[in-house]
């Protein structure tokens, strides 16, 4: 198991406003392993930004424990709070790169100076700082624009400069707080692929906050879903994708299941006879297609009716989802499912009540 590079334990953040308290993060535990690309999704106000800003103590928590890169940054034991010294915090922060939705570059300094700014206290000589800044700009493909000002670049280019700045001190971790939210689809993909590239080439650990599930599906290996200041579900991308337990997770992940279930509800397809079951089949990589379903009929005398199908790409691998109604004797159905399992198809049985509860909601 890889080393845990970020360890947030029981972290809470409460904002004291004039007449009320806002609990933005509630006793969240989040461990990120070295080399992870950890996606954190959730609706606006869920507490995502507040949580990740705790990682480099841009936000000081009200309770809990924060350990990053093996250094204890914050610990609260009851009323006693231990905070890393300001000077050490600054040097720890340099090992945690961060990029933001609005890039946040220094407008009055050139691209190269923006990168060099991060190296001011690196102990390097002026000449070396300049060389390193150029090297970083090359890494993000913008060395030719070194003397431009941020306003002269496109959003995507500005974000690449921000990445160069974030990587200046060779951090182990890169946090992206909505780093692609202000970009068009093409630039979004470029930035995401750059992050993935850095993850693979440099072993960079990435924490990716976003409300665009597509970003997570494209590069993350793990995902956590936040709601109301808590992580309500987390796990490997594929597991979450196929076995999301929370309604909210399904809303985010999509994976067809939510859509399928709503279609089923709408057309009352959920009303099954005794020898029918609805199952969700998920397959990774190779495709499930007619032949398998034909085989179910031929070998086990089980009919399979496709009611919804969808294919998505997770981290570059196609993942298909089928919702089928299978009809046959109970023995036949068991054999059929066994067979499917051997084909490495992930099977999730959809309980009938899941299809009904929505109707009472509407009524």
């Amino acid at each position, binding site marked *: 198991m890889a080393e845990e590079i970020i360890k947030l334990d029981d972290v809470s953040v409460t904002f004291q406003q004039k007449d009320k308290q806002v609990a933005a993060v509630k006793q969240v535990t989040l461990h990120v392993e070295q080399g992870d690309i950890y996606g954190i999704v959730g609706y606006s106000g869920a507490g995502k930004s507040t949580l990740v800003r705790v990682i480099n103590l841009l936000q000081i928590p009200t309770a809990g424990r924060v350990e990053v890169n093996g250094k204890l940054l914050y610990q609260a034991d009851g009323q006693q709070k231990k905070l890393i010294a300001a000077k050490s915090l600054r040097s720890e922060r340099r090992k945690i790169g961060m990029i933001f939705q609005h890039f*946040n570059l*220094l*407008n*009055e300094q050139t691209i190269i100076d923006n990168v060099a700014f991060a190296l001011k206290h690196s102990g390097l000589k002026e000449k070396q700082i300049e060389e390193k800044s150029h090297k970083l700009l090359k890494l993000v493909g913008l060395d030719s624009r070194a003397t431009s000002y941020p306003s002269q670049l496109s959003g995507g280019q500005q974000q690449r400069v921000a990445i160069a*700045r974030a990587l200046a001190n060779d951090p182990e971790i890169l946090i992206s707080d909505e780093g692609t939210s202000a970009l068009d689809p093409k630039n979004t993909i470029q930035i995401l692929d750059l992050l993935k590239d850095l993850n693979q080439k440099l072993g960079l650990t990435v924490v990716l906050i976003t409300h665009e599930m597509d970003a997570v599906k494209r590069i993350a290996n793990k995902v956590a879903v936040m709601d109301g200041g808590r992580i309500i579900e987390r796990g490997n991308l594929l597991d979450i994708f196929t076995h999301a337990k929370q309604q909210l997770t399904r809303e985010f992940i999509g994976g067809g299941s939510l859509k399928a279930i709503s279609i089923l509800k709408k057309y009352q397809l959920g009303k099954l006879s005794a020898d029918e079951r609805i199952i969700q089949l998920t397959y990774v990589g190779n495709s499930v297609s007619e032949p398998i379903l034909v085989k179910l009929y031929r070998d086990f005398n089980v009919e399979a009716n496709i009611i919804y199908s969808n294919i998505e790409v997770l981290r570059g691998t196609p993942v298909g989802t089928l919702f089928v109604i299978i009809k046959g004797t109970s023995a036949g159905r068991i054999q059929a499912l066994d067979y499917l399992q051997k084909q490495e198809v992930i099977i999730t049985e959809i309980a009938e009540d899941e299809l009904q509860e929505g109707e009472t909601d509407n009524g």
Partner: protein
Amino acid sequence: MADLFAKYFPNVVYQGWTGDGGWLPAIGETLYMTFWSAIFGGVLGLIFGIGLVLTDEDGIAPNHTLFSIFDKVVSLFRAIPFIILLAFIAPFTKLLVGTQIGTTAALVPLSLGVFPFYARQVQVALKSVDHGIIEAAQSVGATFFDLVFDVYLRESRSELIRVTTVTLISLIGLTAMAGAIGAGGLGNMAIAYGYNRFANDTTFMATLLVLVLVMIVQLVGDVLAKAFNHKTAG
């Protein structure tokens, strides 16, 4: 041409270029008062303006007590009308420069009169720096001084130039007022030699010169503000 001028502006010509009541000393006094009170009031205003922003709740060194002190002092001095301030601090002026009349003595009330105005302007200018930029700088380990100089001051420098221009212009106005009570300069020329002696042409000329001064300041300010602004493309 000169004859024509002498015909329509007899009193202006009468004042002469040099000597007591001459135009050059008047211009010189106005420039002198503007310059030095801009320096003293400017430094004071800058300190208070920066202090206000840094110690504010969302600043980089939040401190409620300090903020209140900065805030109260600035508000207090802003509340005192300048003409009353002139009289009010006369004893203090005497203590500081040995006299309470004359051009140099006027620097004390001028500096104190302009600093709260400038402090508020600086406060607004620094507040215009996006908090996200400050956070981004903090996230790469910027120190307190990096944040003050490379982020707050440098990012808002165009805005600072703009508010400095506004302040200078209002300061020129204040020097004219100080001039009215004997501090010399173009204000004194307009009142003492113009208005009081029914020499309307002198008043007119003094006004014109003040206007020219204001326009030069505005022009230079605009050019500099533009040159130091890279926030928008172009």
